[in-house]
């Protein structure tokens, strides 16, 4: 298999297999979560839980409580910076938008490549800093499992190979583009079975939190 065959495989069958596993895994996971059900709230409702649920999805992200985050400031800031960089790279690069267009049927405007490049570098630097923080901070180190490092690598590799592809580093573009898509395939395959699912479950979890608080009449 030469590099062209490799690229063709990851763009075609490889990506198809990864996508099926990703969607299948996520669907199973969602059914499992929702079918567990919740205990019935027997107390009298003191407010709209539904409205508060949706409100919390947004407010929980925007709210920065300087007191309770005083010991985790680095994680908060780095988390924000990394996620913004990651989303910029994934969703605002023209070739990526073409991929989404081929799936959903519509496109949106792209950003110039130097901005994407900058966002990618920022995301990678932040990830390295967070990895360093994880292995040097005693509490984080104690809490970390093997999966945390696997998930870190799965997220880091698409950024790294994407950067290498754009700058034509080390190998031919054909090979690096193949590696880049392969790294995304790996991310998709492991996504439903690791804590990467937080990208989806985060919204449900927040909604439930908000709903429960809303039904109890918690004042915001």
């Amino acid at each position, binding site marked *: 298999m030469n590099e062209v065959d490799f690229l063709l495989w990851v763009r075609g069958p490889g990506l198809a297999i990864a996508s099926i596993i990703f969607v299948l895994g996520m669907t199973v996971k969602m059914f499992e979560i929702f*079918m567990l059900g919740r205990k019935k709230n027997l107390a009298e409702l003191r407010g709209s839980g539904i409205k508060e649920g949706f409100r919390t999805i947004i407010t929980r992200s925007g709210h920065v409580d300087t007191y309770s985050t005083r010991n985790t400031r680095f994680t908060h800031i780095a988390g924000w910076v990394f996620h913004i960089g990651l989303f910029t790279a994934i969703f605002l690069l023209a070739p990526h938008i073409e991929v989404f267009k081929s799936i959903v049927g519509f496109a949106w405007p792209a950003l110039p490549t130097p901005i994407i490049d900058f966002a990618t570098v920022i995301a990678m630097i932040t990830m390295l800093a967070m990895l360093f923080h994880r292995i040097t901070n005693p509490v984080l180190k104690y809490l970390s499992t093997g999966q945390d490092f696997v998930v870190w690598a799965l997220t880091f590799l698409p950024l790294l190979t994407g950067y290498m592809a754009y700058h034509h580093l080390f190998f031919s573009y054909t090979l690096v583009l193949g590696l880049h898509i392969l790294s995304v395939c790996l991310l998709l395959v492991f996504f439903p079975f690791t804590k990467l699912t937080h990208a989806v479950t985060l919204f449900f979890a927040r909604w439930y939190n908000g709903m429960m608080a809303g039904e109890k009449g918690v004042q915001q």
Partner: protein
Amino acid sequence: MADDRTLAEMLRAQGITRRGFLKFCATTASMMALSPAMVPKIAAALENARRPSVIWLSFQECTGCTESLTRSHSPTIEKLIFDVISLDHHHTLMAASGEAVDEALNEAMEENFGKYILIVDGSIPVGNPAYSTVSGISNLDMLKHAAEGAAAIVSVGTCAAYGGLPYASPNPTGAASVEDIIKDKPIINVPGCPPIPVVITGVLAQFLTFGKIPELDSLGRPMAFYGQNIHDRCYRRPFYERGQFAETFDDEGAKKGWCLFKLGCKGPITYNACATTKWNEGTSWPVESGHGCLGCSQPNFWDMGGFYRALSMPTVDLANKAGIGLAAGAAIGVAAGALNRGKKAKAVREHETVTVDDLEKGA
């Protein structure tokens, strides 16, 4: 055929001045990315080179490679250089026909055994050899026979180099490339559909100059001509960086000459000299004429998921695959969810309640 004159003598006989000859050597040197100091060496090597025998075999091909070569604007010095190469056998170009052709081939092979350059264009039908034969001889047998005495083989065109169009899915003839079949000879791939004329002659000049095959990339192509990426050398590259793309072939973007990536340009994965050498004596090249690069110097360019599909797009219908995943996931999910609920209900049922009295009894 047996002509012992050197190339320099041949060229002078054809009215090529020393100045013109050196100009060609300088052009060749710059194309091969060699220092100007190499120009006299190239000139000396070429001047003293004996007229090498070249055997050109055409298999499953469209004759486009030969057309490319012969339609180089006449008279170019490259063409003359090619004329003075002893092209002893060429299915399409030779005047002879019938048995005389076979004789010419055998004669050239015997006379120059171990020294001739074998040029092949077209792929070889291995699945069913009957798809392409010459004088009743299968392409496979003819290639094996001719390769025996070859000093080196030059696979001209993507068909000979990687299978090309005949190799395209579902490959009805079982087409194979030269390097798939011949393993014991140095092979230079000069892919392209067709290759740039000056690249074909350049590779031959390089071989004559240095007497050995040039530095090749991982796909067997001379680095001198295939070391550059089309996307990197494309004059439309700044539009890619700015995110300015032609969305259709007749929109404002297309008129302004914006990047053709979204229209399926394969420039980013293509290695060839088009963007710098250009075609028709440097007149233009595909991207300059408003069409994306097809990636014709790459293996499997015909099966790259469509000429007009952006390179980053998957070659399969992912929405359809997602549907399959969703349906299967829903079925498995409902089953798993029901199983979990069953477990939960069982746990609730089997949960033994304990009263304060029970605890006191135990104490």
